[in-house]
């Protein structure tokens, strides 16, 4: 990971976006902007929130670092450890399981040689199981970055993996 050597600072463009979000809230309540700013920070810095990134966000919002840790550690969509370029979020809730999510998951596990929560050695894929993605009519569902992939089969999943390998671009929420 090149995060350690990189300076933790938003680009001017991203910073403008951040200030626009902060500006939506009354003076003294900048903390309200925490969630959207964390999403931007995660997208910007290799799709995970290192303590340094969280401290930087705390500094931007004028709050204590621990207030950021508290929020970031609560939500599963924030990664607190480095992740692969593609985080494969497989829905493991009832309806998806009924139509083959478990088969999909075990296929991905075999294919990639990793368990949920793990990352492939090449840093390409992280497998993650998630709760209901609210697309129950189209299961099994997998979210990768901001995109839903629906009605998945092992074959379709293989195609997707190939496609991702070819693109080789980090998938983020925003």
């Amino acid at each position, binding site marked *: 990971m090149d995060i350690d050597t990189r300076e933790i600072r938003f680009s001017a463009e991203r910073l403008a976006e951040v200030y626009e979000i902060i500006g939506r809230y009354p003076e*003294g309540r900048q903390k309200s902007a925490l969630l959207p700013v964390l999403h931007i920070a995660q997208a910007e810095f290799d799709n995970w929130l290192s303590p340094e990134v969280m401290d930087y966000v705390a500094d931007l919002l004028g709050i204590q670092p621990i207030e950021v840790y508290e929020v970031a550690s609560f939500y599963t969509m924030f990664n607190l450890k480095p992740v692969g370029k593609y985080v494969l979020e497989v829905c493991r809730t009832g309806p998806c399981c009924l139509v083959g999510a478990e088969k999909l998951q075990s296929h991905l596990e075999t294919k990639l040689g990793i368990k949920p929560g793990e990352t492939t050695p090449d840093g390409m894929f992280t497998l993650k199981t998630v709760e209901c993605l609210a697309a129950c009519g189209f299961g099994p569902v997998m979210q990768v970055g901001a995109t839903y992939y629906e009605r998945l089969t092992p074959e379709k999943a293989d195609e997707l993996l190939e496609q991702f390998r070819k693109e080789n671009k980090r998938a983020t929420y925003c």
Partner: protein
Amino acid sequence: MATLFIDNAPYQVKEGKNLLEACLSLGFDLPYFCWHPAMGSVGACRQCAVKSFRDEEDTRGKLVMSCMEPVRDQARISIQDAEAVGFRAGIIEWLMTNHPHDCAVCDEGGSCHLQDMTVMTGHNYRRFRFNKRTYRNQDLGPFLNHEMNRCIHCYRCIRFYKDYAGGKDLDAMGAHNHVYFGRSEDGVLENEFSGNLAEVCPTGVFTDKSLKQHYTRKWDMTHAPSLCQGCAMGCNIIASERYGELRQISSRFNGEVNGYFICDRGRFGYEFVNSEDRIREIGVKGKPEIKDRDSLLRTAAARIREGSVLGIGSPRASLESNFALRKLVGEDNFYHGVADTEFDLVNLTLRILKEGTVRTPTLPEIESADAILILGEDLINTAPRMVLALRQAVRRGPGEALSARMNVPLWQDAAIRQAIQQDKAPLFSITPYPVRQDELATKSLYESPDDISRIGFAIAHAIDPDVTEIKRLSDEERMWTAHMAAVLLRAERPLIISGYGAGSEAVIKSAADVAWALKKSGKDVRLSLTVPECNSMGLAMMGGHRLESALDAVAHGHADTVIILENDLYRRAEKTLVDEFLQKSRHVILLDQVYHQTAEEADVIIPAGTFAEADGTLISGEGRAQRFYQVFVPDGPVQESWRWLQQLAEACGNRTLSHLRILDDFVLEIAKTCPQFEGIEHIAPPSDFRIGAQKIARQPHRYSGRTAKEAHIQVSERKPPSDEDSPLSFTMEGYHGIPPSAVVPFFWAPGWNSIQSINKYQIEVGGPLHDGDPGRRLIEPGDAHTPVFFAEQAAPFPIRPDCLYLIPQYAIFGTEEFSVHSPGIASRSPAAAITVARADADSWGLRDGDLLEFQFNGQEYKLAIQTNQQYPRGMGTLPIGLKGVPFMDLPGWIRLKPVERS
């Protein structure tokens, strides 16, 4: 009043409370975790579920969380209902799935709310057979131990530390079943009230680390009702002992003084009692053979008889001890062992409170103030507990307004907090430098003491034109004084706070003027003036001469024998003066508890009992007389100073104290002969008080090892000491029910082993103790009359070239004489340095850490400096009393030595 049916029986209860409070107040045992009387309800733990029925016809009912349901007239609930009982049993079983069941090695065991609730709910068989989640613990510094595996996730710690006490370095991290309560990394929990977590946490996650050094179960300790000696707030504490060692201080509820909480200086500053530096033996210079009481009394008496004697009293000694000394040496020869500036400040304070028109506030009155003005006081360091109260006060106004508007009861803590966000009732803080209370303030100003008083007088003038108008205010000052006056006038319960902190009489006077002006315009105002030590107020009320006069008396040969009561004179006057004083005195007799510089110079050293080994009465800054009781009888010749002085008087043939033998005699004599102390005989029951012919037991009935604990010294059990001074017994024999509130040695009720048993000692939960909260206020303002305002014209603070106006600064951890003997407290002391405005330091070419050389009162000093951008120019502060800082009777102008530029 509303009628509440509980399991079909009608009860009369107060409206506006929640069902849990109502049930507990009625004496029912209903389990709970997340609710706390001081912190309200959040309905998080689900443990207090009861069945609620629509009406008499309703047989099904529904489960409700009793802490979240307001009391309604004619409401019908059931605690016994099978479904409610089952639900509560299920909840505790869930909460316990990850709990390690390590009670045997847990410090909380035996005083654990979780244990009590588990037993109460009937969860006694464990069905969970999977792995438990585990955590890594943190090093939280010298005061608290962290053991997260025990956590049941009630969130009380966060609600106390963050929401109630304003801490910033503890939070809840994670979600689901892996929530972690801790800091972002290892390190000291910084908030000054962190120790309360040990009581707030219902289980053993946060426990008292100082107790761990010499751990003993609650049931194995001897306890006594005591008073904190750390400052003049008069917080009530429980002091606990085993094997002749003081082992723990916990908070003793007093709704008028400290409520449920005390500060960390009070909780952890007790270790001096066990210290190596304690004076435990009799010492007579040149006569090492004198070791027993009688020969000492003979020797000391001979010396007292042959010379002309003077006595130096102490603001940290009890009323009884000061009184005994004054009797022994005679009123004319009784001097106050306090710095002269402090003498003047405290006497002024007393005069203002006695002759003025405004009362001092109790704790609930501070918490309900709706506009607050602080003049010159760095409260976290001079009256720590008050800051916690102010924190509640600033939240209360907006909370009440919202509560009324949105129809949400005030005890629904989360909802109210969420809705008011950072809205605060007005609090104005005008201090010489940045202080902790700034984070509560709507406006903070940093001004020199002179200017603080000018602003204070100007506010008073804006409220009442009879107060002299202050000229030459800056535009900004004029604007703020007008604003503050208007806000105070709009308030219903304004509170003015000042005190000794800024070292300025003018500041105190200006605070009095503001309060009196508000009173004149019909406001229900309170005036709180801090004083330095636990009995500063009592000593001032007793009367006596300045220390300066004592030094003069010896210098001029009017006296040659000095009796010093519980005092280190090197903390009261400059070194050269004290040196000369002690050298010129033919005999110096010192009664004290801990060795210090004065003890080095004394000819006769008499070991005096600390608060843990003595009984006595103290008068707090509020003017409240309260009694503290001995916890244990120490080995050796250590005894109460008043008892020593009485015996000394006898040995001298001085008959003035002959008729006084036990504490009650002293208390009655003081009340009889000093009208200002009338009433102190009623603050606690006399020594012959009995309940069913029984004394009140200091030891819990489960106290173990009594017959064996000294077997390594002697096999046969020693006769337990008897206590002729109080209605308490030193053993487990005696009354174990609820005694009068002033003599509660520990809180315990059947099924309630933890500190939560306080519920059973209160008339209603969260309210006063049965019998009323202990203590009696001795100072009430005179009849309504027109006050004579102090305000007079004064020039703005002058900045003098090559000079600096140096004022004292205090530190909750570090500047108090005894608490620094606790290693934890010592480790948190600030640096011994002068703090000045950065611009001033720049102009001298000095930077942080450089040495500043200066002259004060003819003496030369050299101290490191620290710079601060927010300090006013021309002024500096020095932490007086801190180790490594020489005593100077500040405030005063210091002359800087020219800085040599390299």
